């Protein structure tokens, strides 16, 4: 199945291409991984806990650290103003006034934003202190929806920027307008790509130290790269890059792009160490991670295609609106530009128009996530292909085939400038659908449908880029500005191979470990050069920016290993080999060309009797420098550097070759929907890959399976959800943010073909992100096929499918009609997350109820868990309450404001509740009327809950609110009436609703 070794490789042993088991696994399986948290720390190290914003958008009016500092063991509390005084804002690609420091300054812009840092003797104490940092906020209007954010009346996140839309760029390639005018039809899709993340098992980890002697920072962190973020950190810390020593440990518990975003915390903890004069350690916990680490951007795409009757697409027009959350962090907005050259995907479409818009909203900032712009692009493009088939009455696979780039067109220059290196997409699809696989899938669908089941088939064809051109992001800048700033392009890879005095080979490389098995692959590459066994090569992938060779492209991201670092390893290995060959040629009295390597020995090819162990030949460079040829230096330590010429800067016409290699993925699947549970079950899934030459097929399979699971997660499970009105995060734990487990993951069938890249000496391409791009849309297409849907919103949840599929429910059983329509009152509060209304009758006079409600003393007895009520003004009460459900209880401060007061007739209440468990804001209206049976109370309310309970307690909040509101009215009735209230509606609550909700809220 694997292609012949390419002509221009120097492989002699054939380790490259073998499914070698991972060297890394022995230590990991024995619990001997060395992660940041495993490293010993200095005895005086302080532990940090970060205080985070409970508001999505608010001005910080005051921070009181008194109570926190009073906790024994709390040493420092650091706030944004201190950080601003000694650091610079992070650099971003857009020159817009959107400054961000390592802590919030003046305002917070998303729930979870870091506002203060507590440093203490241990993490427990630090968290005790964090709960006692009192922050006063002045809430600002919130915008969560990216479409709303670009409207002229939207609240501005960064007022100095004048708009939430920070960048708009239009691109035209070919003659799209003419193509659309000529086309038989225009077919369009409207796509929303959801906000999600891929959560590594190990969260962020930083140990930072400040050395006043040379004013330098020394930081150990599980940063993943790209190291283009290193200058950003150094600039923020106000030191030259050489004074920020960043060390990456040998192991990291996954990353998937996310661990780029540890960089603001590297700066934050560095500054904390500087302020405190002691080393600072911070281990991010899961609550912090899910609210503030990072996510992929959500994107809204309108995609139009100019289509011929046979399904051929002649032009595409994209309108992309991408939501980056509250801040643009370097290298954002990467996902909008990383795929730029490859926007036309696997298709030979020569006319292209594009509008790219970047918007900020009150959500956690977006950053790197595996797939990085690919999933967003292909959800639109491949849904479009399926829609073209449906609208033209064609087979979707046939529409894909008719538009593919032909095999003889490679290397193929796309209209937007990508230079696709190699491929044979037709053959890949032929292999994937062959051996009866497609026939079987079609038969399964026919049989299932004949049995009345909901079954669909989906396809997706995806071009997968490998190793990004560091200049792609400058495409966002107009050509004039690019000219002013100087060119940015290319991607440098560096690997060092050392041979010691007895022939021991060790190597370092510019990748960060995340679990891929890079050490194994690198050892295979170098072993081939030196005629050794891979286990003879020690690979150390720790990085120390003061001691190792690195460039801005270093790190593990964007599939740069196989097209990049692997090549540098190949070159470094070859340099060592050539040097040892020259030494041996002298010893053997032969020529360099005659020296062979194999079986751990160096020998003369012409006179095999002349032979010696590799170690002896190589060791000569140490033991006897005089025997080293004059052209060489003594010792053996070679750095392989790889900087491919194909990665040119953007042209004046905005054409950009965004990546070096372009692999191909073709997926097809059959899914069935359970009509009872509305769950989507993957029945069969085939994934076809052409990633050029595979360095290690076992590692490749691991990457493909992992990417598939994450693609499946995006299709069916994972979504970061914010309350649209308040910006409260609703997916704060793994009970709300649903990562599929082994139980949810189907078996898949993986097929490879190898069309080597002509642009890399090993012929290898990147392959670790393909299924993140192909799988979401492949499943979406299958669901669309099963249900004949035009729009498929990801993730495809049972709840969403039920809303589509379930027939009309019929009317709810009718309830007693009201004098005042409480349900109509409820409309006043309909925008709140929790809205309700109710009616009850109390056998007493309205005056009694009125007095009970407005008297702090009686109010105290009505509000569940109330300790004190103080009337600050006649229309402003403050209460201290303990609220909760079951064992979950917390103390809160509640402020209640009364308005619209018509004595004994009606009142409007509004207010807020805040405490360590969370916060809530509520409004309610209560109307009293006389009836023959006493006083009738009609009430309606709306409650919005934020903070911890909103993000971790979503499942319980609604019911908790009902319960606490219910208690409130029971007590009101008991205190003001003669008992015997008659609720006429199941939902309860009123003015107190607000309180209540709040209360309820906190659970």
């Amino acid at each position, binding site marked *: 199945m694997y292609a012949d070794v390419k002509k221009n490789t120097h492989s002699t042993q054939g380790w490259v291409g073998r499914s070698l088991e991972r060297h890394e696994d022995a230590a990991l399986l024995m619990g001997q991984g060395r992660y940041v948290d495993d490293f010993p720390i200095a005895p005086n190290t302080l532990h940090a806990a970060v205080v985070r914003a409970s508001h999505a958008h608010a001005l910080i009016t005051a921070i009181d650290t008194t109570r926190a500092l009073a906790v024994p063991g709390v040493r420092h509390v650091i706030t944004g103003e201190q950080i601003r005084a000694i650091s610079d804002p992070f650099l971003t690609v857009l020159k817009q006034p959107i400054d961000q420091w390592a802590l919030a300054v003046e305002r917070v812009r998303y729930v979870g934003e870091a506002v203060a840092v507590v440093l203490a003797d241990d993490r427990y104490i630090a968290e*005790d202190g964090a709960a006692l940092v009192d922050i006063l906020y002045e809430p600002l209007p919130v915008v969560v929806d990216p479409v709303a954010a670009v409207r002229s009346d939207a609240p501005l996140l960064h007022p100095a920027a004048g708009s939430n839309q920070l960048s708009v760029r239009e691109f035209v390639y070919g003659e799209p307008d003419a193509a659309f005018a000529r086309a038989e039809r225009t077919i369009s899709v409207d796509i929303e790509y959801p906000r999600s993340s891929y959560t590594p098992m190990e969260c962020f980890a930083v140990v930072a130290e400040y050395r006043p002697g040379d004013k330098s920072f020394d930081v150990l962190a599980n940063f993943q790269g790209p190291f283009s973020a290193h200058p950003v950190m150094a600039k923020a810390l106000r030191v030259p890059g050489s004074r920020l020593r960043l060390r990456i440990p040998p192991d990291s518990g996954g990353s998937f792009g996310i661990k780029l975003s540890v960089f603001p915390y590297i700066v934050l903890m560095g500054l904390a160490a500087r302020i405190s004069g002691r080393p600072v350690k911070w281990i991010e916990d899961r*609550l912090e991670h899910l609210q503030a680490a990072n996510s992929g951007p959500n994107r809204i795409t309108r995609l139009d295609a100019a289509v011929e009757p046979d399904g051929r697409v002649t032009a595409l027009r994209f309108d992309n609106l991408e939501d980056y959350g509250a801040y643009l962090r370097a290298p954002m907005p990467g996902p909008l530009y990383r795929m730029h050259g490859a926007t036309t995907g696997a298709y030979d479409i020569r006319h292209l128009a594009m509008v790219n818009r970047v918007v900020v909203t009150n959500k956690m900032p977006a950053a790197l996530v595996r797939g990085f712009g690919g999933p967003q692009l292909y959800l639109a493009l491949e849904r479009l292909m399926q829609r073209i088939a449906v609208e033209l009455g064609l087979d979707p696979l046939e529409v894909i085939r008719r538009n593919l780039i032909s095999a003889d067109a490679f290397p193929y220059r796309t209209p937007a400038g990508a230079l696709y290196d190699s491929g044979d997409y037709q053959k890949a699809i032929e292999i994937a659908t062959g051996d009866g696989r497609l026939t079987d899938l079609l038969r399964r669908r026919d049989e299932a449908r004949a049995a009345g089941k909901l079954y669909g088939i989906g396809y997706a064809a995806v071009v997968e880029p490998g190793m990004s051109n560091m200049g792609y992001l400058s495409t966002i800048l107009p050509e004039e500005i690019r000219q002013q700033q100087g060119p940015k392009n290319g991607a440098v890879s560096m690997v060092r191979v050392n041979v010691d005095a007895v022939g021991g080979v060790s190597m370092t490389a510019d990748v960060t470990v995340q679990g891929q098995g890079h050490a194994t692959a690198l050892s295979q590459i170098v072993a081939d050069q030196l005629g050794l066994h891979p286990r003879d090569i020690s690979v150390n992938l720790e990085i120390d920016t003061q001691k190792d060779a690195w460039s801005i492209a270093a790190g593990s991201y964007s599939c740069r290993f196989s097209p990049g670092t692997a090549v540098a390893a190949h070159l470094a290995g070859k340099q060592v080999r050539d040097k040892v060959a020259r030494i041996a040629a002298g010893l053997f009295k032969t020529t360099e060309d005659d020296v062979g390597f194999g079986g751990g020995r160096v020998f003369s090819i012409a006179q095999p009797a002349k032979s010696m162990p590799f170690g002896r030949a190589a060791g000569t460079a140490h033991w006897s420098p005089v025997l080293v040829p004059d052209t060489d230096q003594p010792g053996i330590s070679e750095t392989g550097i790889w900087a491919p010429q194909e990665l040119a800067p953007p042209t004046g016409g905005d054409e950009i070759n965004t990546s070096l290699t372009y692999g191909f993925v073709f997926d097809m699947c059959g899914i069935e929907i359970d009509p*009872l549970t509305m769950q989507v079950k993957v029945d069969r899934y085939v994934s076809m890959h052409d990633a050029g030459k595979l360095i290690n097929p076992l590692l490749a399979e691991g990457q493909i399976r992992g990417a598939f699971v994450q693609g499946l997660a995006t299709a069916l499970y994972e979504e970061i959800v914010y309350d649209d009105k308040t910006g409260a995060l609703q997916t704060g734990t793994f009970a709300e943010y649903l990562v599929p487990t082994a139980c949810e993951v189907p078996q898949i069938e993986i097929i490879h073909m190898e069309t080597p890249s002509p642009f890399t000496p090993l012929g290898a391409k990147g392959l670790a992100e393909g299924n993140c791009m192909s799988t979401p849309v492949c499943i979406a297409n299958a669901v669309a096929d099963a249900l004949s849907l035009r729009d498929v919103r990801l993730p495809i949840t*049972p709840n969403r499918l*039920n809303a589509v599929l379930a027939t009309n429910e019929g009317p709810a059983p009718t309830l007693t009609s009201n004098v005042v329509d409480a349900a109509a009152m409820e409309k006043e509060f309909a925008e709140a997350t929790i809205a309700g209304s109710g009616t009850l009758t109390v056998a007493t006079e309205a005056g009694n109820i009125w007095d009970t409600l407005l008297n702090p003393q009686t109010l105290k007895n009505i509000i569940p868990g109330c300790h004190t009520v103080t009337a600050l003004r006649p229309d402003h009460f403050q209460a201290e309450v303990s609220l909760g459900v079951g064992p979950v209880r917390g103390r809160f401060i509640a402020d209640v404001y009364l308005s619209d007061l018509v004595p004994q007739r009606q009142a409007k209440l509004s207010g807020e509740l805040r405490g360590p468990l969370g916060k809530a804001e509520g409004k309610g209206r209560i109307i009293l009327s006389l009836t023959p049976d006493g006083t009738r109370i009609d009430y309606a309310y709306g409650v919005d809950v934020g903070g911890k309970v909103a993000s971790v307690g*979503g499942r319980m909040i*609604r019911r908790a609110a009902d*319960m606490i509101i219910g208690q409130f009215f029971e007590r009101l009735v008991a205190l003001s009436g003669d008992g015997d209230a008659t609720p006429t509606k199941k939902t309860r609550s009123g003015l107190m609703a607000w309180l209540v909700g709040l209360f309820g809220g906190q659970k």
Partner: protein
Amino acid sequence: MKPAAFTYMRPDNVDEALQILTEYGSEARVLAGGQSLMAMLNLRLVEPGVLLDISRLPALRHIRLDNGFIEVGAAVTQAELLAWPDLEREAPFIAQALPWVGHFQTRNRGTVCGSISHADPSSELPLSLALLQGEAVLRSSKGERRLAARDYQTGMLQTARREDELLVAVRFPVGLGRAGASFQEVSRRHGDFAIVSAGVIRHAGRIRIGIGGVADRPSCIELDENVSAANLTERIEQLAWELGGYDDIHASARFRRDLVRRLAPKLVSEVLSCA
């Protein structure tokens, strides 16, 4: 995610445990398997002064038949009950429901009584106790009382346990469901909290339907086993509206009612076809 400070106490016998509860009352939280409590502690959703660990008390480790009941002590894990050789015969419904509780790993720690005492409206064991009309055995220094399931769980995460009481055991009537028992739940992933869970048993000419996950506690209705299809549909429709449901990020109230409408008849027909 570090808990606030607390005092950890692990008494040697039940009497000592009860004394601690008498002394500390609502300040104390009982720790058995910790599968819910530890997470709540780490989230600082609960901050008890005293954590009373009863997981190793030998007197609470029993599963025994007693007077027509299966009595399960408070330290018995879900895995131990699942492995009890007589479970299928004596409690066929629980044998069906228990594998849905969490995961293999969490069942190794989580206890039967702990789950019932936590009173999560979506949990399988509180539904089992309600459906089988079992009993909760509460003991304090002053004595012991038994509460019927419907009197024990009073709401979401709330029970009738007094501050000084310990749930020392739960009791399930022996053999209920031998004539037919069925359980199913719908959740987003295996082991997640149920969006809706449903159980049905057939006993003495009656069928009993229990629904979890929709209201603040499990709810049950009972029908004659010869109920007509139309009447069954009507009763289930009525039940769906009575329970109402609620919206959260995983499911709307509407979806919950629809699941009641689909799950209940399916399980009823399964149970009736068992005979």
